[in-house]
């Protein structure tokens, strides 16, 4: 057989050098683009592997299950990897090696490596079935606290039917009290998940999905929409604030109180701007007659929240001004229109008014 070995004209080393240089140039561009972005509020759903740092009994079950499965899988992986390594060490040969013994199979070996995983998986299935039941069943002795979590493009509405409180992108719960979240959607499919606290569940329009959970440890936990739901899917975050029952009762009381009357002329002007510039078509502020729109988030006590626009910007006068001027710049695709024609004075007054709604 005629054969000639070619010598590649471009060496792979050259290609790698070019590739690495290209990558470095791209990386060099990155920090600049990062600097150009807006100030974002702090939002922390836990460590990157948050479900393994659980803060509720339900998530403890899940993380326990994970470690069990990891050990089982680890054994399988080490077995496969080990067999491959041994094959490499023991059975490597050149192109001209004579063939070894021709073995076509071994029924006993094959049946056992079919049956053993099957038996292990039966065990895994039994645990799985039990945990499915435990996690999806209310562990409460009495009636749990009902909270309706409704996904909107792109924010979360939280409603406590028994308490008459409505809030947005921030849910306060009393520690140690059994909760029943009714997860639903006002438009498309979203998914409701605070990774350290509860199981993930979809928010489907026209469906009431249940999450039963108890959150024993006070603290602030991040959550977000995990099902892709359109342009601003990345900005659909919420915070779960687990408080002592006493603090929670205080919070409820505060939420139900109407906002304080404007304490200075700037805030009064801001309130007038709010009432006269179509804001009230979409937003509600409880206790302010006429402000009863239901399309956008409820703004009662918005000044006390961790963020506006489901995590797109922090709550402060300058950031609220930035937001109202051009919301699309900070949350692409957002349904709220910008108000670029609003004068700086009106804008500042409006922002000051909203931030004052503590």
């Amino acid at each position: 057989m005629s054969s000639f070995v070619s010598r590649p004209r471009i060496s792979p080393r050259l290609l790698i050098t070019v590739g690495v240089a290209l990558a470095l140039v791209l990386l060099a561009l990155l920090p600049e683009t990062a600097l150009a972005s807006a100030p974002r509020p702090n939002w922390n759903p836990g460590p990157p592997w948050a479900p393994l740092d659980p803060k509720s009994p339900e998530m403890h079950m899940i993380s326990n299950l994970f470690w069990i499965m990891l050990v089982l899988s680890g054994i399988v992986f080490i077995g496969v990897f080990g067999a491959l390594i041994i094959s490499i060490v023991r059975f490597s040969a050149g192109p001209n090696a004579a063939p070894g013994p021709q073995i076509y199979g071994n029924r006993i070996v094959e049946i056992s490596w079919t049956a053993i995983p099957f038996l292990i998986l039966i065990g895994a299935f039994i645990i799985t079935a039990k945990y499915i039941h435990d996690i999806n069943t209310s562990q409460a002795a009495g009636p749990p606290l009902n909270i309706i979590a409704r996904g909107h493009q792109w924010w979360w509405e939280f409603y406590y039917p028994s308490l008459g409180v409505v809030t947005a992108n921030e849910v306060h719960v009393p520690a140690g009290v059994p909760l029943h979240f009714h997860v639903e959607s006002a438009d498309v499919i979203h998914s409701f998940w605070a990774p350290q606290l509860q199981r993930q569940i979809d928010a489907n329009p026209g469906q009431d999905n249940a999450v039963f959970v108890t959150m024993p440890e006070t603290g602030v936990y991040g959550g977000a929409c995990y099902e892709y739901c359109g342009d601003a899917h990345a900005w659909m975050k919420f915070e779960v604030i687990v408080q002592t029952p006493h603090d929670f009762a205080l919070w409820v009381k505060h939420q139900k109180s109407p906002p304080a009357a404007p304490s200075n002329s700037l805030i009064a002007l801001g309130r007038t701007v709010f009432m006269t510039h179509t804001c009230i078509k979409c937003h509600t502020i409880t206790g302010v007659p006429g402000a009863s729109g239901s399309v956008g988030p409820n703004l009662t006590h918005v000044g006390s929240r961790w963020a506006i626009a489901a995590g797109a910007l922090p709550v402060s006068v300058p950031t609220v001004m930035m937001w109202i001027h051009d919301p699309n710049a900070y949350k692409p695709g957002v349904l709220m229109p910008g108000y670029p024609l609003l004068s700086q004075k009106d804008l500042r007054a409006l922002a000051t008014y909203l931030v004052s709604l503590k």
Partner: protein
Amino acid sequence: MATSALEEIRAHPLPRVTSSEGFLAWLKTTDHKLIGIMYLLFVAFFFVLGGFEALLMRWQLAVPQNNVISAQVFNQLFTMHGVTMIFLVVMPALIGFANYFVPIMIGYRDMAFPRLNAMSLWLLLFGGLLLYFSVLQGSMPATGWFAYANLWEQPYTMNNGPVFWAAGLTVLGAGSIATSLNLIVTIIAYRCPGMTLNRMPLFVWMVLVNSFLIIWAMPFLTADSILLLFDRFLGTHFFVWQQGGNVVMWQHLFWGFGHPEVYIMILPAFGMISEIIPVFSRKPLFGYTFVAFSGVAIGFISFIVWAHHMFTVGLSETEQAFFAATSMIIAVPTGVKIFNWLGTMWGGRIWWTTSMKFAAAFIIEFTIGGISGIMFSVVPLDYASTDTYFVVAHFHYVLFGGTMFILMAASYYWFPKITGRMLNERLGTWHFWLLVLGFNLTFFPQHFLDAMPRRVYTYTNTAWAIPNMLSSIGAAILFVAFAIFFYNIWISLRHGKVAGPNPWSAYSLEWLLPSPPPAYGFTEIPTVRSRRPLWDLAHPDQADWRFEHHAPAPAMAAPVPSGGGATAVATMPRPAARPAEHKGFQISPGRMLVLFFISSESIFFVSLIVMYSVYSFHFSSAQLNIPRTYWFSLALFASSGTMIIAEKFLDKGNKKMFNAWLIVTIALGLTFLIGQVTEYAALYHDNATISSHGEFGTTFFTLTGFHGFHVFVGLIALTTMLFLSRRWKPGYDTPLKGVGYYWHFVDGIWVFIFSIVYLRTLF
């Protein structure tokens, strides 16, 4: 025989694209080998597109709060990356290799239906271009590759991206169904003498299973796409929940397709690796029967695991447990395959070519992907990892570490056969190690991003920065690795070592041909006596057929032709005969094609009937005139009988009576259609239309309308037969029998629709 053919092929290489005649030769070809090559070329083109989409996304995600691309562009990128890699890269790459190698691996010269084969190829190209033309109307699809309802409904998506998604996937689906029907008939009817099912190369086995998966799974996607188009254009409201639609039904239909699709993307690759590992281990495949039947088992089980993509939509506990169980069961046959491949290497004489390196790396990467897959079947773990980067890592380990690694192994393995030259092994080694490094660096860190939602264009959390940065660096390395691969192809085509017919001392029939094989394939159809005909030729003393008792034939093996029994040579020249004859099949390939096509069509109707049945729990039907429908249904049922009578007269050669009964059949069919038109008119009069409020009109008109459309198509086919019968020749009874099957199918479906839509309202 081999040498003379080799001389000939050197004198007549592949048609050259550069000359005008050669260019036409490619465009008009029906040769399965040229079509296979073109599949792979189109795949390379779309792979570069999809790869750059991924690189852009990784650039954007490299650091928190990056502004390289906008949210809207990012959403289009991940949608098109998924659609491209699944429908325009992985599937057609596997189909392209199947196109090239299945006919010659089973000792035949071409696919069963070469022109249908060419049509499938061009449907792939134009379906892909149709998807990408969407960019001209302002936006590519941006609803994710599974395009969940109701995000694509107006007003949530105002541009026509979803329409291009549905139209493009319907075209691509038609192409893959056509090519799969073709492959099924080829494999069943055209195997060479001695090639029983029990001796088929594993690649052919897996392509066969895969083709059945495609023809039975694709129609679910087609149904979903059609419903999308109806919702957008005809005002139906299948997924408009405000008017009674159900958004979760989309997911049931989609994953009814989507989960078999996962195996569609890996089974032929399993077949490839089952060819490659034995060759480079210098051993037969360990446990052939187990590997083949585990593939069949995976095929069946893959149809009952779909809802494991939906553990968070709020299924009942029973449903969740059921789909957890099936998903765990399907892991068993997959695991069996891995053990068998290891068993094949064990005790072998392993030759570490680049191809074999990829095969070994595949075993490791795929095991990691399989392990994380089992974690998803443990439902509570799914609650805490779905829609995160953990799932992104998982399916890339399966599809990239699995299928893509095998495609690389297959490229190095079969390139010499396709082009006549070897790929450069030195460049191959660089390619291999950079790919392994880049792949693991890209996707392994994503396992640790279990709280980061997938499909977000940016993130603020600095705790996610390091894994993301590693992942992006890995993507850059992958780019370099593939650049080396393409460069290797480029340089080896010109200057590669000449391969000769069988550079790897491989076992299966394609290596009997010169490299590249001549257009006509085998000069003489070979006869095989075992699973490794070329091994038998090279090692007559150790020939496999001497040890057949090691591999008892399964009960379903086809009868061994009488020609192969007595001769001691594994492959012996034998006059070419019509394979359908010596196989002793009672059914011609054409009719077989129609039967399998009908099975695929049935799945489409099953989807529509399921939609009707599920929705019918919530609506009250309009007043249907059941007696009238009964009478015109009777006409349709009677037409099946008249069709049978017509065929009987044709068999007797009585052309006159055949014509007469065919006309009666057509008349009865027309009666049914007229009845349906009057029914629609009456309903329209009562303001019941496809877009009227409630789900009755939506489901009723879609279901019965599609049936009416099938009747209409059947009538056109029957009328064509009527005209053909003027110049009747003996061979023409095959199309007529085919049309007859189709007509009976249309009538049979109506039995179900009539019962479910009409009779049920009586109770």
